[in-house]
């Protein structure tokens, strides 16, 4: 057990409001668009066609307009970018060819918005249309024009993984069922639209760049690449960020465009995208078709799984290869299921590029898996909880595809939500139109091998201690509302034995903080938390030496708690924090220490091709029960209540852990009930928050959270991730609740009223046909 006991004087495990929360409730928090000031106004010209060859872009008239400061086009940047070094195939503005409607082709900076709008209208654009493909099936047709010449069949990546003997597994099953699930494409719809404020410093030829990014380090690298700059000449600042959920987890075209325009104007440029443009920038969860075969024995034991997954990835690579690998890799690691075959296809189409969204790659596959398990349990007359309990893992172990599992709190999660929801007593007794459903899920605590593999540690935190007695924690971990800075403050304070308020966290400015890979794959608590503890231990060592010298004791016997240093076992001699800091600084001046974290080799996945994806230091585990009411006349589903339990290893900040679990369950609810992007010939029909409907407070149920602490042996204080693992359990739990309520099984997401009514009608007609056949 490396978890601290919860006591009043320990910071770790105490409900702690966010260290940057005061700014948010008083209006002092500055987000990127708030920094625009008197900067020039930038706007992007976007392609009106979904696929075509650019014949001509004439910017002469636009450049001649009074008040226009700069115009840039694809000709101004010949370097492709992309988050995966092996798949960089996107330009900040299209060159030669456009591949989706809304793709940037040119951009302007002007003295005001009206002039910028006039300049866009003055640009003459001639594009010869090519055939465009809006479904994976069309794009994969044998005669389809290739979006990218190096990708035959418009398939970005195929994955074929076989572990164990799936055919033999299916043969020994008592029940084998196959089904195909279609899950709509969705978007993060984070509340803050995209924005960048870029300032060129003439004379020094430097770029000061503010952006909404979750990955300042990647954006720094890509700006240097695309602008052909020495990265030392770029300062990348991440101000307050209004949510991410994966939408900003790779460098985006508008960021590079802002950089190009700032340099061209030789000054400050603000590029603030509209909501429509933010939605078109996309990077959401792809439309995914999952065909799944499962084998189950009469006692509920799973024998084998075969999954074929087709993702419509949009026009460019982005994270696509990782997404299609995640979809297969995380079939493992939740249950004891040794026989798994996975065939994945990531397909290009003439639509905005998909990317990483909360629960990256795993959500639609988990929906299919849990939903089919629920149906098979019903056929075998087994309780869904019984089936899950028949398939539990026993940690520690490595899965057949090489994933390390050191802690596994799923059994406790099941017990907690089963009891809290009154499952045994209430299920089947709620009355007409009401039902209960359950499902399980899991997620990684950071990718054990980052996409930019440099050999460096996965995370570094530096601490500074100076005459004022404040401990300044320097971290590149981007605080985007998830509470990462608070987690760092708690980890440092707890390790040093000081008040959380004494720790000042500085994050997200490349001028001062150590590099960090960013806020994605739920990596920060595990990796940065461990680095913060390491740094604090190093600082504690220096302070203990100073205290020991003054107290004439062995440094190993020095304790610090409540900002008071004492010799272990001695009631008398004590020193205050200020006294020890003064003594320590007297030795060698202000103190700077650092701590780092590196994942061990054995955590980095199997040796097979693509085996690093899905590998992690520890998985979070979750179980949830959803109670829902279905109005069969309107097809409308109401979620009445949710009970969720998540094993986060140890809750460093239980308040933030609850907030993360509530938010992720709720985001799963949005996907399950209503969220969906739609296109007409490539034109987004979901260009606003009215058309891309997310749940309002009136749609949202009470969510009862249970925190399970399995105490991971390698996690910081035993902690694992908490912000993604519960998401993918919601859609299948809701589908199960609907089946329980009205006996309707649905193969599509979202379970929107139109789809529910369609399915009800289809079911009624099928029943009538069957009856007529019988009568005949």
């Amino acid at each position, binding site marked *: 057990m490396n978890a601290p006991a919860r006591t009043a004087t320990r910071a770790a495990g105490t409900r702690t409001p966010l260290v940057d929360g005061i700014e948010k*409730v008083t209006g002092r928090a500055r987000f990127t668009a708030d920094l625009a000031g008197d900067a020039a106004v930038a706007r992007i010209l976007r392609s009106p066609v979904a696929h075509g060859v650019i014949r001509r872009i004439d910017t002469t008239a636009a450049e001649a307009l009074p008040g226009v400061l700069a115009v840039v086009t694809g000709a101004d940047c010949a370097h492709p970018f992309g988050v995966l070094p092996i798949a960089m195939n996107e330009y900040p503005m299209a060159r030669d060819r456009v591949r989706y409607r809304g793709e940037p082709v040119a951009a302007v900076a002007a003295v005001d918005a009206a002039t910028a709008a006039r300049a866009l209208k003055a640009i003459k654009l001639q594009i010869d249309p090519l055939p465009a493909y809006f479904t994976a099936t069309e794009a994969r047709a044998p005669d389809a024009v290739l979006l990218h010449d190096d990708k035959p069949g418009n398939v970005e990546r195929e994955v074929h993984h076989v572990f164990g003997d799936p055919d033999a597994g299916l043969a020994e099953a008592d029940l084998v069922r196959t089904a195909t699930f279609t899950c709509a494409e969705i978007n993060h719809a984070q509340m803050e639209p995209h924005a960048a404020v870029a300032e060129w410093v003439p004379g020094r030829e430097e770029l000061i760049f503010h952006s909404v990014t979750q990955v300042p380090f990647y954006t720094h690298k890509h700006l240097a690449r695309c602008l052909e700059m020495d990265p030392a000449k770029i300062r990348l600042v991440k101000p307050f960020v209004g949510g991410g959920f994966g939408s900003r987890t790779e460098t985006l075209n508008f960021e590079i465009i802002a950089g190009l325009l700032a340099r061209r104007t030789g000054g400050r440029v603000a590029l603030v995208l509209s909501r429509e443009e933010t939605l078109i920038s996309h990077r959401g969860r792809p439309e995914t078709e999952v065909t799944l075969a499962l084998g189950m024995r009469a006692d509920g034991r799973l024998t084998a799984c075969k999954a074929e997954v087709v993702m419509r990835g949009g026009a460019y690579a982005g994270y696509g290869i990782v997404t299609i690998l995640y979809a297969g890799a995380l079939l493992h690691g939740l249950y004891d299921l040794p026989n798994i075959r996975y065939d994945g296809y990531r397909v290009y189409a003439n639509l905005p590029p998909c990317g990483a969204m909360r629960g990256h790659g795993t959500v639609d596959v988990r929906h299919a898996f849990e939903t089919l398990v629920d149906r098979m349990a019903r056929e075998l007359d087994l309780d869904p909880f019984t089936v899950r309990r028949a398939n539990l893992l026993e940690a520690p172990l490595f899965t057949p595809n090489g994933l390390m599992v050191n802690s596994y709190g799923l059994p406790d999660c099941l017990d907690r939500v089963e009891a809290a929801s009154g499952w045994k007593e209430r299920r089947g007794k709620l009355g007409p139109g009401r039902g209960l459903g359950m499902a399980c899920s899991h997620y990684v605590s950071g990718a054990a091998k980052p996409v930019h593999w440099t050999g460096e540690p996965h995370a570094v935190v530096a601490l500074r201690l100076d005459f004022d007695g404040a401990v300044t924690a320097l971290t590149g971990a981007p605080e985007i509302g998830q509470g990462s800075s608070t987690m760092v403050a708690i980890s440092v304070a707890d390790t040093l034995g000081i008040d959380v308020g004494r720790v000042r966290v500085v994050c997200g400015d490349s001028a001062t903080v150590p590099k960090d890979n960013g806020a994605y794959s739920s990596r920060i608590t595990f990796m940065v938390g461990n680095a913060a503890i390491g740094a604090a231990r190093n600082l504690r060592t220096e302070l203990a030496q100073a205290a020991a010298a003054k107290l004439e004791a062995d440094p190993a016997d020095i304790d610090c708690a409540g900002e008071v240093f004492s010799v272990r076992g001695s009631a008398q001699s004590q020193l205050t924090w200020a006294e020890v800091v003064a003594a320590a600084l007297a030795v060698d001046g202000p103190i700077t220490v650092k701590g780092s974290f590196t994942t061990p080799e054995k955590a980095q996945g199997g040796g097979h091709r693509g085996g690093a994806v899905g590998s992690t230091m520890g998985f979070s585990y979750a179980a949830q029960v959803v109670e829902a009411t279905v109005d069969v006349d309107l097809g409308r589903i109401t979620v009445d209540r949710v009970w969720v339990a998540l094993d986060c290893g140890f809750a460093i900040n239980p308040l933030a852990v609850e907030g993360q679990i509530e938010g992720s369950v709720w985001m799963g609810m949005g996907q399950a009930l209503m969220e969906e992007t739609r296109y007409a010939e490539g034109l987004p029909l979901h260009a606003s928050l009215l058309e891309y409907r997310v749940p309002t407070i009136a749609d949202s149920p009470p969510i009862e959270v249970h925190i399970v602490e399995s105490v991971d042996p390698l996690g910081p204080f035993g902690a694992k991730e908490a912000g993604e693992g519960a998401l993918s359990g919601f859609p299948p739990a809701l589908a199960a609740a609907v089946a329980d309520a009205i006996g309707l099984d649905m193969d599509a997401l979202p379970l929107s009223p139109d789809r529910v009514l369609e399915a009800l009608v289809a079911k009624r007609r099928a029943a009538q046909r069957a009856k007529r056949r019988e009568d005949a």
Partner: protein
Amino acid sequence: MTRILRLTLNGRARADAVADNLLLIDYLRDAARLTSVKQGCDGGECGACLVLVDGSPRPACITLAAQCEGAKVETLEGLSGPGGALSPLQRAFHERLGAQCGFCTPGMVVSATALLRETKRPDEGAIRAALEGNLCRCTGYVKIIDAVQTAAAEMAADQTAEAAG
């Protein structure tokens, strides 16, 4: 056309030359530098820009500045107490984690302020009804409801104490 706009902004009288077609959000953010008023959508969809105009919540992104002639306008910056003390709602949103990323928070607190001025102890249904026009993408609204209830209870307790004293 340009006119002189006179209004009371967060308790202070102001007069500014504004264009007739200037939106209230642009007046507040650019002229008055009150950047808590957030643009989260392309017009009237998300509630992030809500401000109080003569006590009523109004989306600043679809309100003309000129419509506020003579009005009392309040933004989140103006809701703190004397000496910048957090209002009960601000404190509850902070302490109960009603704000995660914080982008929707200004509009949320503004909406909730209007609610609690009208209704001392709103039930959950009244809170949901009052905040239905405010979208949040982080919290699932659970802790937002908790924050409003916490603030309402505290304010009611303060008033009881005042009445008793």
